[in-house]
C-alpha cells in the first residue's frame, strides 16, 4: 500500500510539473503576477510529493519488501540497516529517484528564498526547472520505475553489490547529485534570465548562492568519490580518468570557471554573454554525464545495469535541453550589451585567464572522453583513451593556471600592477623556494615535474596565507584579531579556497614519490616499505553479518618500534558470492601505509600489494578546504540574497577595495 502511495505521488508530481512549466512562464511573459505566484506553491508541492515517493521506496527497503522488484534486485534481509537505507540509491532506478528529488529540492529552495527575485525572473526560472523535472520524472516513471511489483514475492533478495556496502555510499552519491543536479537551477536561472531579458549585475548576484551551493557539493562529492575509490578498490589510486569520473570533472571545471566569471559580471557588468553560456554549458555537461553513466555507451568501471532504451530516452532529453537553451541563447545574445572595460593586467583579466584555462581543460577532458565513441562510430575501431592522454593535455594547462592563482587574487580591479604584486609576494616566493629545496633534498632523486608541482603547491598555499597575514597585520599587531574578524568573508574565502588548491597540488605531486611492494608472504616474513617494515603475523577466517572473510594480521614497524597493527581482508559476500577487498591503512601525519591482500588459495601465504604513500591525505584535505571556503563565501552577509539593503548602508571605509 505504502509503495503504491509513493508511485502515485510520483505521477502526481509529474502532472504538477507540467502545470508549473506553463502557467508561471506565461505569467512571466505577460507580466501577470498572479500567474507567477502559482510557481512557488507548485515547486514546493512538487518537492513534497517526490519526498513522499522517496520515503515510500526507503520504507520498502527498510522492511525488505521483496515484492518490489527494485528491492528484490538490490537488497537482502541480512544487510546492515545503514546499507538497506543507503541501498535505496545504490542502483539505477533508486538513484534516478534521488536525482529528481534533488531537482525538486532546488526548485523548492528558489521558491522559498524568492523574496528578492524579480517576479518575471522567478516565474521563468521555476518554469524551466519544472520542464527539467517533467522530463526526468517521465524518464523515471516510464523507463526506470522503482515501484514495479513482482508477483509472487521472492523469499530473499539478491543483495546489494558488495562494493557499494560501505559508508561511502551513504555520502558520495547524495553529495555528488546535489552538485550535479544543483547546476540545474543555475541553468534554469540563466534560461529564465534569457527569456525575460534580465542579464545584468543584479542577476549575477541572485545566481551566486545557488552557484556556490552546487559547486560546494560537487567539489565534496568528487573528493568523496575519489577517497572512496582509494580505500575500497584496493588499487591505491585516487583518480583513474574513467569516463564516469570525467563526467563529473567536466561540470566541475566549467562550474569553477562560472564561479569566477560570475564575479566579474557581478562587480563590473562584463563577461555577461560568457557567464550565461557557462551556466548553460555546465548543466549540459551534467546531463551528458548522466547520459554517459546510464546508457553504458562507454566502458566504465561504474556499471549500472545497462539498457539502450534508457540511454536513448536521456539522449533525447539531453538534445532537447541543450538545443533549446542554445537556440534561446542565440536569439538573445545580441541583446546583451557588454559592460565595463578593463586592462588586460587586472583582476578581471586574471579571472578571464582562469576561465580560458579551465574551459580548455574541460574541452580536453570532453574530447578524450568522447573520442572513443566517435572513432567507433566512424571507423568501427575500438580504443581507450587513458591516463597518458589526460596527463599530456591537462598537466600543461594546469601548471600555468597554478602559477597565475597567487598573482590573480592580489591584482586590483580595472588596472592592476603586476610588478607591485610580485614585490608584495617576494616573502612568500622566497619561503616557498626554500621549502621546496628542503623537500627536494629530503626525498632525493625524483621526477623534476613533481618537484616543480610541489613547489607550486607550496607557493599557492603560502601566498594565500601571506595575503591574509598582510591584511591583518596592516598597521601592526594592535587590533589584528579585530581586523581578522572584520575581513570580508569573500576575501577570506578566496584565500582559503586557493590555499586548498595548493594543498591538493602538493598531495597529488607527492604521489610520484610513493613506494610500492608487490609480494607473496608467509606468516613471520617481513617486507620493507621505505622507513617502515611490514610483518605478517597470521591469516585467519572471520564471519560478518552477510559475508565471510579471510583476514591477514600485519604489524607495522618504524625502525624497531611497533607503530600499528593492520588487518586487511578479503571478503566474500554470501548473497552474490562476490569477493571484495578491505584495505588496511596506518596513518602517519598526512601520509599512509596502505596494504591490500589478494585471494589466498592455501591459507599458508598471502599475496599483497603494499604502499608507502607520502602526504596522500592532502589530496582530499585540499578540496574539503575549498568547499569550506565556499561555505564561508556563502555566509558573507553583504552578498546574501536577502540582505542587499544592509550592505548598502555599511560605511565605505570598512570595505577594503578588492
Amino acid at each position, binding site marked *: 500500500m505504502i509503495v503504491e502511495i509513493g508511485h502515485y505521488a510520483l505521477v502526481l508530481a509529474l502532472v504538477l510539473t507540467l502545470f508549473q512549466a506553463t502557467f508561471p512562464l506565461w505569467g512571466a511573459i505577460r507580466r501577470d503576477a498572479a500567474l507567477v505566484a502559482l510557481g512557488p506553491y507548485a515547486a514546493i508541492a512538487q518537492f513534497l510529493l517526490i519526498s513522499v515517493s522517496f520515503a515510500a521506496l526507503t520504507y520498502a527497503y527498510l522492511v525488505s519488501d521483496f515484492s518490489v522488484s527494485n528491492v528484490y534486485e538490490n537488497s537482502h534481509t541480512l544487510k546492515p540497516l545503514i546499507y538497506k537505507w543507503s541501498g535505496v540509491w545504490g542502483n539505477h532506478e533508486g538513484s534516478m529517484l534521488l536525482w529528481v528529488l534533488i531537482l525538486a529540492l532546488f526548485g523548492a529552495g528558489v521558491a522559498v528564498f524568492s523574496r528578492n527575485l524579480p517576479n518575471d525572473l522567478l516565474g521563468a526560472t521555476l518554469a524551466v526547472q519544472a520542464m527539467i523535472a517533467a522530463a526526468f520524472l517521465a524518464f523515471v516513471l516510464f523507463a526506470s520505475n522503482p515501484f514495479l511489483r*513482482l508477483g509472487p514475492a521472492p523469499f530473499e533478495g539478491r543483495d546489494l553489490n558488495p562494493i557499494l556496502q560501505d559508508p561511502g555510499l551513504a555520502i558520495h552519491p547524495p553529495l555528488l547529485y546535489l552538485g550535479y543536479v544543483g547546476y540545474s537551477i543555475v541553468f534554469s536561472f540563466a534560461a529564465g534570465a534569457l527569456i525575460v531579458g534580465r542579464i545584468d549585475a543584479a542577476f549575477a548576484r541572485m545566481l551566486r548562492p545557488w552557484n556556490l551551493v552546487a559547486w560546494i557539493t560537487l567539489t565534496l562529492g568528487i573528493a568523496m568519490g575519489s577517497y572512496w575509490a582509494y580505500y575500497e578498490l584496493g588499487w591505491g589510486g585516487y583518480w583513474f580518468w574513467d569516463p564516469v569520473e570525467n563526467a563529473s570533472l567536466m561540470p566541475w571545471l566549467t562550474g569553477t570557471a562560472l564561479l569566477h566569471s560570475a564575479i566579474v559580471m557581478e562587480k563590473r557588468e562584463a563577461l555577461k554573454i560568457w557567464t550565461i553560456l557557462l551556466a548553460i554549458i555546465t548543466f549540459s555537461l551534467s546531463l551528458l554525464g548522466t547520459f554517459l553513466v546510464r546508457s553504458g555507451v562507454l566502458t566504465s568501471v561504474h556499471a549500472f545495469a545497462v539498457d539502450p532504451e534508457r540511454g536513448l530516452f536521456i539522449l533525447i532529453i539531453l538534445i532537447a535541453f541543450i538545443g533549446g537553451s542554445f537556440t534561446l541563447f542565440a536569439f538573445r545574445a545580441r541583446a546583451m550589451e557588454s559592460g565595463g572595460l578593463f586592462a588586460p593586467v587586472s583582476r578581471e583579466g586574471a579571472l578571464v585567464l582562469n576561465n580560458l584555462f579551465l574551459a580548455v581543460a574541460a574541452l580536453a577532458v570532453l574530447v578524450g572522453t568522447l573520442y572513443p565513441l566517435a572513432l567507433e562510430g566512424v571507423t568501427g575501431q575500438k580504443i581507450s583513451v587513458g591516463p597518458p592522454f589526460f596527463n599530456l593535455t591537462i598537466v600543461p594547462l594546469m601548471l600555468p593556471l597554478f602559477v597565475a592563482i597567487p598573482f590573480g587574487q592580489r591584482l586590483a580591479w580595472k588596472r592592476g600592477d603586476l610588478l607591485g604584486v610580485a614585490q608584495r609576494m617576494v616573502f612568500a616566493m622566497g619561503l616557498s623556494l626554500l621549502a621546496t629545496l628542503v623537500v627536494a633534498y629530503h626525498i632525493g632523486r625524483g621526477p623534476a615535474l613533481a618537484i616543480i608541482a610541489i613547489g607550486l603547491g607550496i607557493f599557492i598555499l603560502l601566498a594565500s596565507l601571506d595575503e591574509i597575514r598582510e591584511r591583518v597585520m596592516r598597521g601592526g599587531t594592535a587590533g589584528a584579531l579585530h581586523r581578522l574578524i572584520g575581513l570580508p568573508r569573500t576575501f577570506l574565502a578566496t584565500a582559503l579556497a586557493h590555499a586548498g588548491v595548493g594543498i591538493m597540488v602538493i598531495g597529488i605531486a607527492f604521489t610520484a614519490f610513493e613506494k610500492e611492494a608487490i609480494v607473496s608472504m608467509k606468516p613471520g616474513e617481513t617486507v620493507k616499505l621505505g622507513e617502515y617494515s611490514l610483518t605478517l603475523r597470521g591469516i585467519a577466517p572471520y564471519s560478518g553479518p552477510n559475508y565471510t572473510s579471510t583476514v591477514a594480521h600485519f604489524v607495522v614497524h618504524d625502525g624497531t618500534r611497533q607503530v600499528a597493527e593492520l588487518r586487511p581482508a578479503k571478503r566474500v559476500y554470501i548473497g552474490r558470492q562476490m569477493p571484495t577487498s578491505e584495505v588496511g591503512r596506518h596513518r602517519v601525519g598526512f601520509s599512509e601505509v596502505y596494504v591490500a591482500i589478494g585471494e589466498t588459495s592455501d591459507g599458508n601465504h598471502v599475496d*599483497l600489494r603494499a604502499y608507502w604513500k607520502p602526504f596522500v591525505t592532502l589530496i582530499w584535505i585540499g578540496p574539503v578546504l575549498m568547499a569550506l571556503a565556499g561555505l564561508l563565501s556563502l555566509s558573507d552577509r553583504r552578498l546574501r540574497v536577502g540582505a542587499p539593503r544592509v550592505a548598502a548602508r555599511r560605511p565605505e571605509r570598512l570595505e577594503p577595495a578588492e
Partner: protein
Amino acid sequence: MTRKQKRLMILGGFGLVLVSALAMILVGLRDQIVFFRSPSEVMAGKVKPGEAFRLGGLVEKGSVLREPNQMVRFRVTDGSNAIAVTYRGLLPDLFREGQGVVTEGRLDASGAFTASTVLARHDENYMPREVADALKQQGHWQPGKGDGPPKP
C-alpha cells in the same frame, strides 16, 4: 602601444593557448590511445610486437595458473582463438574463469602477451561492451549471460 595593438596581443595570447592546447589534444589522440583487440585479431597479426593494446575476451576455463611471487598465467579466449597472458600482481576481485576480462599490455618478439594491468569491474553482472562485441563477432555470444541482471 595603441589600444588596437594591445587588443591584438591579447587575442594572440588567447589564440596561442587554444592552438597549443588543441595541438596537445591531437598529438595525444594520435599517440596516447590504446586499441582494443580480440584474440582472433591478434592471431591474424593485427598487432605489432611492442605496441600497447587492450586484449579482451573470456578467461578460458581451467587456464588460470598461479605461480609463486604473484605470477599468474591464463588464457583469454573469444571462443575461436585464445592468447596466453602473463601478469604479475594482484588480480582484481572479480577476476574469474569463464568471465569477461580486459587486460592491457604488449606482445613480445615471440608473440607472448604480458599484461601490465588487468581491469576490474564494479559489478559481477557486467560484461565489458568490447568483449561482448568480440564474442558476437565470433558467434559465441549467449544473450542473457553477463547481459545485465536477469529480468524478473
